[in-house]
């Protein structure tokens, strides 16, 4: 399956990936709405939050709004079915299911790869990974 792979060592925190993502999916410059996040953790190290498409959120959803596309292995949230409970956000072991204060539904990376095209250092790449 295709998914993002990160290499924090080479990240220069330009945040272009987040800008690209937020713009693509929410038409906004607010990078809080990006489906991946580049932050500093408590130790002061760069921490890139990406979804590994592990699918733990699928089982957590009470309304079957989250499913894996059998063709590409990517996990999607169906906004129409979603009732906005955010159980999936807490269930995600990587904090890769996102919530933003203006949004009623959670959102996540769908491995489109737009961000990787903008990354100047290949800190994030789209790769074919064995399940």
């Amino acid at each position, binding site marked *: 399956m295709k998914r993002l792979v990160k290499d924090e060592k080479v990240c220069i925190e330009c945040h272009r990936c987040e800008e690209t993502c937020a713009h693509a999916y929410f038409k906004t410059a607010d990078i809080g709405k990006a489906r991946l996040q580049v932050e500093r953790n408590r130790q002061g190290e760069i921490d890139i939050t990406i979804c590994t498409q592990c699918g733990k959120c699928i089982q*957590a959803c009470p309304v079957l709004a989250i499913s894996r596309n059998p063709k590409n292995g990517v996990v999607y949230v169906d906004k129409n079915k979603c009732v906005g409970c955010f159980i999936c956000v807490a269930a995600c072991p990587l904090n890769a299911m996102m919530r933003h*204060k203006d949004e009623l539904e959670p959102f996540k990376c769908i491995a489109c790869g737009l961000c990787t095209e903008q990354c100047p250092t290949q800190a994030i790449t789209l790769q074919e990974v064995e399940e």
Partner: protein
Amino acid sequence: MDHKLELKQLKQFSYERKPIERGYNNRTLYVNVSDQEIKEKPVTEEMKEKFVGGKGFGMKLLWDGTRPDTKWNDPENEIIISPGPVAGITQYPGSGKSLVVSISPATDLPIDSNVGGYFGPYVKFSGFDALEVQGKADREVIVYIDGNEGSVSIDQIAVDTDDAHLISEILTEHYAKDEDDKRNISVVSSGSAAKNSYMGVLNFSFYDPRRQVPRMKQAGRGGIGTVLADKNIKALVVRFAGTKGDLNNSYDYDKVARTGLKLHREIERLDDSLFRMRQVGTANITDTMDKYDLLPVMNFQYGSHEDAKKVYANEFRDNYLTQGFPDGCWYGCSLACAKTADNFELLTGPYKGHKVTVDGPEYENVAGLGANLGIFDPQYVLEANFYCDTYGIDTISFATATAFAMECYERGLINQEHTGGLELKFGNKDAALELLHQMSRNEGIGVQVGRGVRRMKEYFAKEFGADPVLMQDIGMEIKGLEYSEYMPKESLAQQGGYAMANKGPQHDEAWLIFMDMVNNQIPTFADKAEALHYFPIFRTWFGLAGFCKLPWNDIFPENNKYQEEAHKIPEHVQNYVNLFSAVTGKEIDMKELILQSERVYNFQRTFNVRRGYGRRKDDMPPYRSLGPVTKEEYESRAERYDGQLKELFDVDPATMSVSEKIKMMREHREKQYDTLADAVYKRRGWSADGVPTVEHLQEIGMDLPEVLAVAEENQ
């Protein structure tokens, strides 16, 4: 199978759809099935101020809709279902509760029963803060609310069964537009035994898209299902498509979502090492109750049993309960305690051989249907649980009533001739199940058991010459309601919690046994009396706002033990304050929260008084709940009791007979209960006879003239 049935619409009413404003629709729906009147009623600012919502609205509407002498089966008795202003938020665990209120056939008092499932939130999203049903239909009807169409109708449909699991399935199929729409339907029904007993429940359905079956939660206590059946209502059905994250139009939605997410994370982090609600549900405490001698065994005679291990939580988890499913009874409940056994094959009754989805078992069902009947068999517990639900029978009342009948049988107060051949011995699971099937068929001794302990005492004395004094001591009921399944004998706080509860001995109002006996958090007499003020009032609030109590104390943050009043779980209380403020825009604090509750709590007590009850005599527990009635009970805890007598009275128990010791213990414990009642009434602002004083009602703002008048007349 095509379940589109022939429908005859007897009456239709259209209403204007409007968005909810900060948790309130500001109107309720009134349906009279006698004359088929359907109308909207306004919710005034005063009503919100004094009654908040949920149970508060239910009690207020019931007071206004009935006379002081209205009986449960008079047409003017009502069933009110109200979800509360916060209900329906999808982010905070346990936010979909409805409170159901009616005059109870068991107690002749206003009863309130809380329930999950989708009905309450869907009624709210359809446009109403409460559904109030009155009257008695001349033929079997269905009340149908379509929240998307803005339509309410009284329908006539020939549904060829009285059992709730089938009614829910058939009507879900009928009213849903397609497969996807089934999740938007919720059905309220009773069951075939509800009309033959005084312990009928209301089953509230919620469609489970994974199992593709409507599951059910119960408004269990006090026989409201019996009232529904008496009204000739087959079901109440609501359809609402379009549930989203903020249909309440909250004042501060982000705060709601943040607070919810914080608790989701706490549960994700801690539940597996705390109560394991997500694995085994409320039945997690069976083990603790047994180990602490608090599990009711054989009609509350004993508190533990060597075979109890057979019904410990892991037996259900390992052999029956489906694991890892998001089993909440409303969206967003990550505590997910609504466990189910899937593909469960029934061994008895009309559905023998059927493979069904059984919800539960809740702790109450393991303790009641199991231990309290001396039956330690998980397969049987699930089967009895299934039949109770589908027949529309309250598991708790059934269990406690059957335990009483079994003890009467074992002590020779009734015999096999009286029971129609049933050998009603403790441990006889076939007999227990047969009682249930008899209730459904309206035959045999099952009918007497279905009337509950209070009526059985009268009936057994009158018809069979059974000893009324002994039955008074061992019949576990107060106010006509059966005890729920905690052994209060050694917990003074729980004795008071049961006996002084407004509706009868149900633990939801004052579940103090855990903090008293397991955690030892309220050690002194003063602590217990204060707890009997604070907790019933605090716990009332959940039912005003639309919350479930379990996410308050069946999970707690890591640092809770360092808090000053750890037993109150301060961080979670603050969550509730925040959520109420964030949804309604009315800033409250802890003090105001308690005041909101205190108003409704005292209103309910005054409602009891208005109906000729609500006095000290109505709060008198049977002695079994305070101490050992029989020799066997005394001897089972001889060391404890002997020690207490020695300490209290400086006597040498070795020189006394068991009956002397029982007598001495009884005098002490009855006096102790009386002293407690004195302290609690005083703390609650009630007279020594248990009636709220006019001054207290005025002080807390429950100063409606009709309420003050009742208090004044009855001082």
